[in-house]
Each structure stands twice: as C-alpha cells, then as structure tokens.
C-alpha cells in the first residue's frame, strides 16, 4: 500500500515537472534534465588536497614515460596536449606493438567526472591513472618496476618526501599527484559559460539558435545536460563498430584480447564483434553497447568522436542524431536490442544542423597548450653500508 501510494505520488510529481520544466521533453523522456550551466568550482577530494608542490610533481609524472612498461608510454602519449589532451585517431595509439580499442578521451575538465573511462570503470582520477598505466594495450606497467624507477630519480625522491612524507616514492602517491595535476586542467570560460553568465554577446545568432535546438527540437539536453553537458549515464545510440576491426589485424588482436581480459563467457568471446561497453562491468545483457555520455566541453579539439572515434567532425555527429542514431549488434537483435528510446529522427534542416554545429563549437574556449616539462634524470643511489 505504502509503496503503491508513493509510486503514484512520484508519478504525479513527474507529470507536474514535465509541465513546468523549460525544455520540451521528447516521448519516453525518463527524467528531468539539469539545464546547461556554468562550470563550477573543481571538486577536490578531501583525502587528496591540492598543493602547488603536488601539482608540479604530478605534472612531471604525467609527462614521464617511465611510468609505464618499457619506459616509452606515459599518460601523455595517449593524452597529448596538442591533440586536445586526447589522441587524434579513432582508436587510441596504445602500447608499442598494439593499438588500443577505444577513442582516447580528453583530460580537460576530467576533474568533474565521477565516471572515468567510456564504461565508467573508474570513479576517480586517482583510480583511472593506474588502470591506464597498467593495461596491456595502454601503459603495460607493473607497480614494482614503476615504483622502483621513481626511487632512482633524485628529484622525485625529494618531491615525494616533501609532498607525501614518503621515505621512498610510493606508486600509489604517484597516481594522487597525477590526479592533482589533472584537476588543474580546467576550462570554464567558454562562450557557453560566458553566455550563461549573462554575456549575451558571447554566442552569435547561429549559436543561439543552435542552443535552442539543443534544448528543444534536437533534445541533446536529454543526456548532454548540466555543467559538463553530460548526465554521466549509459546509453546505446547504435554507434557503428570501429571500421578498423574489419581490416586491421592488430586491431582484431586487441579486440579479442579485451573480450578475454574482461572475462566474458567462452560463447560470448567466440561470437562478439563489437564493443559491449557497460556490459563488461555488469555482465547484464541490458547493458550491451552502452557507454557513458561524454561531456561536450573542449570537443573542438578532440575529434574524432564517440567511444570508437566513428565520426570525424561535429557535422557527422549531428547528422547521426538527425537520423535518429544508428544501429549495431546491440541494437539490431544480433546480440541485444538496447538502443535508447530517446533517439528519434529529428527532421533538422541543413540550417538547423549548421546552427547546432556552431553551438557545439561554443563549448570550447582557446586551446590549452602546455610545453612538455624537463624530466629529471635517473642517478645511482648513494652507497650505503651493506645493511641486511
């Protein structure tokens, strides 16, 4: 009884909200959408406060390829400042001898995300960094070797002691320092921020029309909402599989490796031909092909788009949605039928498409550039008495 009445109450409330909320809701709209908003203060976890020394250390570690298996592949190799702090190819470059299987995402504003990686496998930057540094097709490093290397870099020894009180640098603290550095890579003064802050000149007429479409007819706001333009929820849009899997042996190797490594059943391993996304974490059929809504900020610099880089520019993306999304093995019944009901053909005119593209560009401000810092060298450890 109690349950039933509260259900009715919630339903009634939702109906009221549907009538009063500003953006029109499409059929099947499951929730109230937070409006686009200026980016607020960077959330800093209480157990990893920012200090200038920690940020400086984290910056060096971010750029240091010794944090990785063969000392060639650090964070920066897949998150290049000059490539939008991401990697400018459909699939990320991956560790030498491999290619990755997903598109590299930008570091910019990642500080605001509660779900890192395309399927939300990490809940904090402190957890994301080691996952990337250790994966066989990413950094392929192991804790012992990476931690040992830090100990032989005198400048790092000094910095870890100062920042963390480590007698010898701890690899766990390297991830904390890297996360602190990443929390400084923020862009919160985009034309969209300025416009929402009251500067009506920050968007041109086309962009203003694009915003209206974004919030209304095109219904982008359904998922790309709030300050990040992401609801951080998981959807299957019917993005087509990566073309490279059809024609590139190296990419086929990694594709199968990921199935093996992520622990799908033998039968699944045999027949799967596309990235099942959230499924690998939940092992629930309903999650096949779902990926976390990516933020739209800084996307001017991060083409190609989608979890596998299927689209090379904003227009392709908008046309994809205009057609009502696409289809893949997890939408057409081959493996599942999980396409989100939110997507419908939008009937946008060419002018409307152009307006939306113009508006998408307003989510990015000037390019954030950074010179690679000078990395401190190794040195032999001072000799000590043979104390064992």
């Amino acid at each position, binding site marked *: 009884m109690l349950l039933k009445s509260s259900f009715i109450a919630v339903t009634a409330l939702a109906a009221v909200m549907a009538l009063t909320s500003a953006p029109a809701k499409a059929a099947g709209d499951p929730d109230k959408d937070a409006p686009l908003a200026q980016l607020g203060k960077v959330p800093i976890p209480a157990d990893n406060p920012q200090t200038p020394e920690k940020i400086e250390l984290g910056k060096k570690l971010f750029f240091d390829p010794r944090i990785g*298996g063969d000392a060639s592949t650090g964070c920066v190799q897949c998150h290049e400042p000059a490539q939008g702090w991401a990697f400018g190819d459909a699939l990320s470059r991956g560790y030498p001898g491999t290619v990755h299987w997903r598109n590299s995402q930008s570091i910019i504003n990642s500080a605001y995300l509660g779900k890192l990686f395309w399927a939300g496998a990490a809940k904090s930057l402190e957890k994301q960094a080691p996952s990337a540094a250790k994966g066989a097709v990413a950094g392929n490093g192991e804790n012992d*070797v990476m931690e040992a290397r830090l100990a032989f870099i005198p400048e790092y020894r000094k910095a870890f002691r100062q920042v963390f009180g480590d007698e010898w640098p701890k690899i766990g603290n390297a991830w904390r320092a890297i996360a602190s550095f990443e929390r400084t890579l923020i862009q919160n003064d985009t034309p969209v921020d300025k416009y929402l802050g009251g500067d009506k000149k920050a968007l041109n007429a086309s962009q203003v029309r694009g915003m209206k479409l974004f919030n209304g007819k095109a219904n982008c706001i359904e998922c790309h909402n709030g300050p990040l333009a992401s609801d951080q929820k998981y959807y299957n849009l019917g993005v087509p599989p990566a073309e490279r899997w059809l024609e590139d042996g190296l990419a*086929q190797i*990694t594709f199968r*490796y990921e199935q093996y490594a992520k622990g799908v059943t033998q039968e699944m391993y045999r027949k799967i*031909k596309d990235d099942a996304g959230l499924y690998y974490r939940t092992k629930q059929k309903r999650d096949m092909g779902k990926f976390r809504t990516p933020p739209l900020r800084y996307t001017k610099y991060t083409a190609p788009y989608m979890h596998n880089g299927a689209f090379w520019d904003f227009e392709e993306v908008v046309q994809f949605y205009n057609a009502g999304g696409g289809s893949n093995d997890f939408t057409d019944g081959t493996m599942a039928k999980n396409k989100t009901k939110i997507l419908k053909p939008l009937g946008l005119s060419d002018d409307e498409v152009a307006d939306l593209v113009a508006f998408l560009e307003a989510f990015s401000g000037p390019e954030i550039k950074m010179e690679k810092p000078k990395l401190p060298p190794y040195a032999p450890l001072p000799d*000590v008495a043979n104390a064992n």
Partner: protein
Amino acid sequence: MIKKIPNKILRLQKSLAGSLIGAGIVAAGLTAITAPAVIAAEDGFGPVKPLEFNAKKAELGKRLFFDARLSGDAAISCASCHQPNKGFTDGLALSKAYPGSNGFRNTPTLINTAKKAAWFHDGRLGTNLNDVTRESLTEDYSMNMDMRLMQERAKQDPVYVKMFKDAGYGEPSNGAIRKAIPEYLKTLISKGSDFDNGKLSKSAARGFDLFKGKAGCAQCHSGPRFSDDKPHNIGVPENPEIWKDPVRHTTYVAFAMFMGVENYMNIRRDVGAQVRTHKADGSDIGKFMTPTLRELKYTAPYMHNGMLKTLDDVVEFYNQGGGDDPENRDPALKPLGLTEVEKADLVAFLKSLSGQPLTSEAYVWKGKFPSEYPAIKDWRNVRN
C-alpha cells in the same frame, strides 16, 4: 651404511625413471654422501642423455622462442638473451632486459635446461619449464607480456594457427605456448664433446683427475651436467655495475620487492637463493645454483653475475679458496694449492665438456617473421 645408500639411490632412480626432477635428486644424493676422491668416471658423468620430444610441438616451440611478438612491446624474443651461437647465452656479464629495464644477472645457458631440477640462478622455480616459461614471458623486466594478449597475437598469425593445429594443440592458446616452448627446450641437449667421445687430451685427462680429486670440483659439479642442482655460496664478488647503473638497480629493486626481500632499498647485494628459502638467519644469502659446466666454451663470462671473464679466472678463483663472504661461504671451499700445470690441466678438462654448437636449422628458427598481422577476412562472420 655406505654400501646401503647406493642401493637406496638405485631404487629411487628406478621409481623416478623418466622424471627430470628424479635425475636432479639422484645427482644431489650422490654428492651428499660420496667423497670426491672416490667418484670414478663412470659414476654418473656424461653423456647427457637425449630426451624424447614431440617433433611438431618442438618445431612450434622453436618458432615461438625466436619470435619477438612474445614480448609486451614486441621488441625482444627469448633468443634476444639466449642466442644459439653463444650457447644460448648473450656473451654479456649481466644480461639485457626488457626495454626500460636492465638485467642484474648473467644469462644462463639453455642447453640441457630441460634436465634441471630448479631454474634461475637463485633456483626460485623448482617445478617445471612450463612455469619457467611463464615467468620469463610475464615478468615485467624480462618480456613483460600479458599472456592473454600473447594468445591473441598467436591466433592472428596463420602460420601459428596451422602449427598449433598440426601439433595437436587445437587453436593457439597461452597454455599451449607454455607447453610448446618447453618441448623445444628438450631438444637442446649437449652432444659431441671430447669428454663424451672419450677423446680427452693428456692434459684434460689429468684435469679430470684433479676435478674429481685434489680440486674437489665434483663435490658440487656432479652428474652428467656437472651440477648438483643445489645452491651454494662460493663468495663471488658483487658486480658493481648493478649498483652503478640506476636502471639495472631499479630492475633489481623491482625483483627484490616482488620476491619479498627485506630492506630492498638499502641492500647492495644480490641475495640469491634467499628469495626461495627465506631463512630467518640469512644463511642462504649469497647462495646460487651450481651451474652446468657443459658448453662453457660458448658461455663466457662466468658466474651468476658474470664477474669472471675466463676459465683461467674461474680456476684461479677456486684455487684461492673462493671469494670473500666469511659468514655464509661454503666451508667446503679451501685454497687448493694447484700448480700452474694443474690449473692448465683443469682448464683443458673444462674445455673438453663443450660439444657441437646447436646452431643448425634443427635448433634455430631461420624463417622470417611477418612485420604485420594479416587481417582475418570476413571478420564479422568468423568465430573469434
């Protein structure tokens, strides 16, 4: 008492017939109870008996052994350190390692390795070559390979797909890789040495007598491989390069950290067998497995850290009673008082233990490896 024990050993030998570990135990048993002076030529020295192997599996293992795609970044193969023309060693005092690391021990020969009872200079693996293969492939400073990725690489190479099938393994798998490489290693058996052929020079024959007698070498260097498969501390000096080269030192630290060595940041010493036995009193620190004396002609420099460049150096080292480790050095080592002629005789004997180089096509994959993986055609419709 003494008469009974050989019977016991014979029974043990019978019960362990065909077992590799058995051979090691028997050899160890002999040295434990027999004074060097009474060991005769026929008491278990050579030749090394060949092992049976499956030709197709060994052929597959051979290709895998020489294939750099079995390392994480596809930069090095097993053969990068175990080079056939150097007796499956690399000629360096300290081996190289996976890129970004640098080795802290001398590469041991793989000839007759299938007969050993324990592997690596510290003997930390005492099980089988499947485990040794796994360790070498996956350890972050050796080949740093995620075996799941390794399997998928093998599946992408049509040559492997056929070879695995022909070998009876079905499709390529990481499990089969760890079986095929040991099968290949079984083929690496010494043959054709002057010692085995009974062609000792007079000097070498005198050296053999010294080896069994005055010099006491046979106390540890026993059996067909001239090894008791046990760790001993003979006081080999530390190789200072390990502590001078920060990358080598990081590699040792990573190893020591992983193996549970205490105080690993402060020690400047390779603890050796302690990583296996972890004795509380530290009496196992500095022990290293007795190496085989076969194929020494190809495998200089010597000792676990390559500190001795020539066989003359090795003999002189023992002549002086070994090196300097007053706490843990094996008490069996004493100054030997060998004359120059006796030292030369011993060296001549040691040289007689090297056989024909295993560098022919039977032992070496001479084919080229493709620079790219072909795509699987009709990928969408083929089962993975």
